[in-house]
């Protein structure tokens, strides 16, 4: 890593810690790019981020996640606590572009310097989405935002990756017919620590909550271990409304109770260990890829792959050879 880049990262980290939101924003960009500056900053910030409570907020498209996140911010701010949000939206697999639209529902908090909202595209992260978002959350936590809400759309892989590294996964469910089926199909309930039936200001929310509770009881005999850590056998189902604020203070209190319980857990909270594992594994993979990208090694890699393609070499031998190449 170049010294100038490292110094830049350290400077950003120091300024961000001292309260510069612009430095924090720049820092998050470096972290997301997996740049040497971002790495230098994280080396400094990681030890200072131990108190973080990472809450994954997921649910079907349009379920009401962003509206609920905005309401949770309001509830937290009512007691003076700072809150950060990472809002993750899918990227186009073809162009790499993305529309990051969750902020629309959170703009009421734009003038508040104790609320920091950052949108992130899901794809193209070298160490994986989990590594990039956990690093971003660590940076936010070290800069005065111990509560980090991570919104992901529950349609595929992203929410599972985030659930694996979050302390708490909150699944948001809208009471409308059809959504329920979708939630089961997507396996969303598998990763739930808490379920919020939102749009509680509309008819049908209580019925939907009752149905969900019944469904979760049926499934309770299975061990739900999705995402590397055990989940509660029967996650609590609460009715809330992001629009009116109904039940939101109680939901925040439930999140806080989980956070407190995890802190006093004998030994280490399983979520912390899962997060550390995802981080270290992600960085190892990243380091291997970096070393492989060096021009001389790339040539060896190409030649080795050619040999496998023509069946002159088996892929296992090939992989061992490449590993010997990059390990000192």
């Amino acid at each position, binding site marked *: 890593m170049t010294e100038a880049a490292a110094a830049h990262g350290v400077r950003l980290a120091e300024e961000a810690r001292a309260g510069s939101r612009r430095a924090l*924003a720049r820092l998050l960009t470096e972290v997301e790019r997996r740049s040497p500056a971002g790495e230098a900053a994280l080396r400094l910030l990681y030890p200072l981020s131990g108190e973080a409570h990472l809450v994954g907020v997921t649910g079907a498209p349009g379920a009401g996640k962003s509206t609920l996140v905005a309401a949770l911010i309001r509830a937290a701010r009512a007691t003076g606590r700072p809150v950060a949000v990472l809002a993750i939206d899918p990227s186009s697999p073809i162009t790499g*572009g993305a529309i990051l639209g969750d902020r629309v529902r959170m703009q009421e908090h734009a003038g508040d310097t104790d609320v920091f909202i950052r949108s992130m595209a899901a794809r193209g992260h070298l160490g994986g989405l989990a590594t990039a978002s956990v690093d971003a959350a660590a940076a936010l936590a070290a800069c005065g935002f111990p509560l980090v809400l991570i919104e992901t759309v529950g349609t595929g892989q992203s929410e599972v990756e985030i659930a694996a590294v979050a302390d708490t996964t909150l699944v948001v469910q809208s009471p409308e017919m059809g959504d329920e089926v979708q939630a089961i199909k997507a396996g969303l309930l598998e990763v739930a620590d808490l379920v919020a039936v939102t749009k509680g200001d509309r008819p049908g929310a209580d019925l939907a909550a009752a149905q969900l509770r019944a469904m979760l009881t049926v499934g309770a005999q299975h061990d739900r271990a999705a995402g590397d850590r055990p989940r509660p056998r029967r996650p609590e189902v609460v009715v809330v409304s992001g629009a009116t604020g109904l039940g939101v203070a109680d939901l925040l209190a439930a999140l806080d109770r989980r956070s407190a319980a995890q802190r006093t857990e004998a030994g280490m909270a399983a979520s912390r260990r899962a997060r550390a594992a995802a981080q270290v594994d992600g960085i190892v993979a990243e380091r291997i890829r970096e070393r492989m990208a060096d021009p001389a090694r790339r040539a060896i890699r190409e030649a080795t792959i050619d040999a496998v393609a023509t069946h002159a070499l088996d892929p296992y031998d090939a992989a061992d050879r490449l590993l010997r190449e990059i390990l000192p």
Partner: protein
Amino acid sequence: MSERPIRVLIAKPGLDGHDRGAKVLARGLRDEGFEVVYTGLRQTPEMVVSAALQEDVDVVGLSILSGAHLTLLPRIVALLREAGLGDVLVTAGGIIPPDDIPALREAGVAAVFGPGTAIGEVADFLRANVRDRSA
């Protein structure tokens, strides 16, 4: 290390309630490989600047139909500079009389795109004009 796509904030300052054009632009730029942060309708200059700062965007694209461009756009440029974001490219689109364009350029708006502008043209302009902000 990876190069990130160009990040664009699209906002609609002012009081009019139409964001069809802004949404078409957002989708078009996504299809051109940009990361588009969309903030929606009725944004005050302060809200635009705070979002641009937190999102660390390279470009702020403002869509404006209300006729208030001569006050809102220079104000946003000034607030961006105040926030240390003078290196962010500011562009505008929507309904802006050609006679007003020189004053907007003078105020720091890098380009004004009329209603019929092709997305490809906007994308090319942004690629050619964003500043390297990584230092």
